[in-house]
């Protein structure tokens, strides 16, 4: 579609909207963090001033990703700003703090080729529990790969999937970019691999961690792929020899797994891999009277959802690594009807006003709802045709981060 233009203007110099305004009274103190710009200075209200790029960044970092992608075509310096790493980081920080930038995805458990993901924003999930309206969902465009995907985990807006447990696909649904990483350099086929994904703050890089269990050898080999490098690097084996059933979660600069000690204690415990020194730590769970536990992350804290007969106890580890800091946040009563076999109840997300989004699931049912601590009530979320044929819903945050190596 041709744009309507009066006349072709000459290219704008890079500082077109950053004319500096020198204050008439200069202060001896440090220079201001942000520059004000103005086109003229008169005694009446001036014509509306143009804004410098750091002020623009303050506004833009609060916008949803979809809108920012549109705004890339405003001008060249805005395009550069929106792709700038510092801006992307700032945007991520704002996203993480905003309920409006968090999404819930659900997908049916189907054995076909195409992945079908349904997405809704968290505020609508919460508000549907208090009204009769159903949650508005949009179907997410998915990478066009003809193999079975399994969702594993997410970090900073990037979803991590495995394709047939042989390779990893990282995908940022907000910017619609994905990348398939090379498979592990392991020839032996009698093995199972599980993958996790997280961020190493110190080197400012994302890492995929692969744990491969060799049935015959009874050990778990661990390899790390750093985005930006192009190979898997082997590190120390996991101090645990059985197969790890669930992917680890990224929390506090570590990948952390919940594992079961079948031999000695017959209890669950936690193993965590620190990205910084690539060493392992064993952690104990809080004193829960049940074996039915799910590991998760709530607001950057490691979280255990422990299902007892009547309740789900939600615990967080306030100081990572310190067993004494396990704190029981809530005791959520079961929602009606979900008290069957193989419970996998899990706390998913907590809002700033202490409303907890939870999954209740057993062998026959899957329900999603919000627990309000202040009133002690649990309200169901109305998601159309959501049933036990669906995988566990997940929460992710919008971001501009590229999943590509």
């Amino acid at each position, binding site marked *: *579609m*041709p*744009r309507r*233009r009066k006349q072709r*203007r000459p*290219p*704008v110099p890079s500082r*077109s*909207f950053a004319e500096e*305004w020198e*204050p*008439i*009274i200069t*202060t*001896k*103190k440090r220079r*201001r*963090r*942000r520059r*004000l710009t*103005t086109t003229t*200075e008169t*005694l*009446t*209200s001036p014509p*509306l*001033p*143009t*804004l410098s790029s750091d*002020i*623009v960044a*303050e*506004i*833009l970092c*609060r*916008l*949803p990703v*979809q*809108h920012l*992608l*549109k*705004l*890339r*075509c*405003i*001008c*060249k310096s*805005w*395009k550069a700003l929106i792709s700038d790493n510092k801006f992307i980081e700032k945007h991520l920080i704002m996203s993480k703090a905003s309920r409006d930038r968090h999404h819930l995805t659900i997908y049916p458990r189907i054995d076909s080729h195409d992945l079908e993901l349904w997405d809704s924003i968290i505020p609508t999930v919460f508000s549907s529990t208090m009204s009769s309206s159903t949650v508005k969902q949009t179907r997410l*465009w998915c990478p066009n790969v003809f193999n079975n995907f399994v969702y594993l985990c997410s970090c900073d807006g990037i979803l991590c999937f495995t394709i047939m447990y042989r390779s990893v696909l990282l995908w940022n649904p907000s910017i*619609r970019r994905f990348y398939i990483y090379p498979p592990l350099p392991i020839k032996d086929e009698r093995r199972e691999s599980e993958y996790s994904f997280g961020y190493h703050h110190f080197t400012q890089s994302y890492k995929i961690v692969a744990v491969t269990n060799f049935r015959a050898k009874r050990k778990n080999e661990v390899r790390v792929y750093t985005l930006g490098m192009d190979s898997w690097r082997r590190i120390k084996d996991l101090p645990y020899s059985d197969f790890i059933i669930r992917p680890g979660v990224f929390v506090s600069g570590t990948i952390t797994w919940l594992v079961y000690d079948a031999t000695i204690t017959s209890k669950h415990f936690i193993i965590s891999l620190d990205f910084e020194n690539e060493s392992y730590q064993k952690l104990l769970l809080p004193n829960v009277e049940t074996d039915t536990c799910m590991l998760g992350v709530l607001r950057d804290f490691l979280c255990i959802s422990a299902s007892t007969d009547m309740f789900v106890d939600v615990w967080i580890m306030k100081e990572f690594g310190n067993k004494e800091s396990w704190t029981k946040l809530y005791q959520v009563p079961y929602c009606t009807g979900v008290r069957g076999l193989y419970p996998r109840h899990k706390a998913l997300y907590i809002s700033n006003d202490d409303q907890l989004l939870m999954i209740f699931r057993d062998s026959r049912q899957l329900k999603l709802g919000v627990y309000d601590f202040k009133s002690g009530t649990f309200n169901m979320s109305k998601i159309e045709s959501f049933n036990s044929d669906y995988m566990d819903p997940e929460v992710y945050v919008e971001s501009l981060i590229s999943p590509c190596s």
Partner: protein
Amino acid sequence: MAQEASSSTSSKTISLKTGDGEIFEIEASAAKQMKTVQRLIDDLGDDITIPLHNVFSKELPKIIEYYKKDITGEITKDFEAEFVKDLNDDEVKVLFLAANYLDANKLFEFLSQNIADRLESKSVEYVRKYFGVENDFTPEEESKLREERAWSFRGIKEDE
């Protein structure tokens, strides 16, 4: 009862003079929240009228109103919603720039968020005009960018 402190400035007022020559009074504790004003006070003393060449009589009273509420700890979501309710997009922008100039952090962040909320569903053309930015893409470059992200261009509301 006002404090009779020799060192306390809690009951003291500061005079601020706008770029168009009007004078407004503000409590010293509120002035502290505006770092630019505080720096000027530190340099010039708190007895003289502080000149604010880049803030005008239309905006300053609104800013003073905000910080009056802030020092008594009464800023709520309802107050903030009411504060911007009758302002149009351009008026908010002028206030936002004034808050930036005054280095008034709390108001600046609140208005950043408010502007972002207003712009969330506006078109590219509107945003360009709003920020006074010139498009330096060629028509071909721009249409290529739009095509790449055609999916993100749906769902825009009518420009007001």
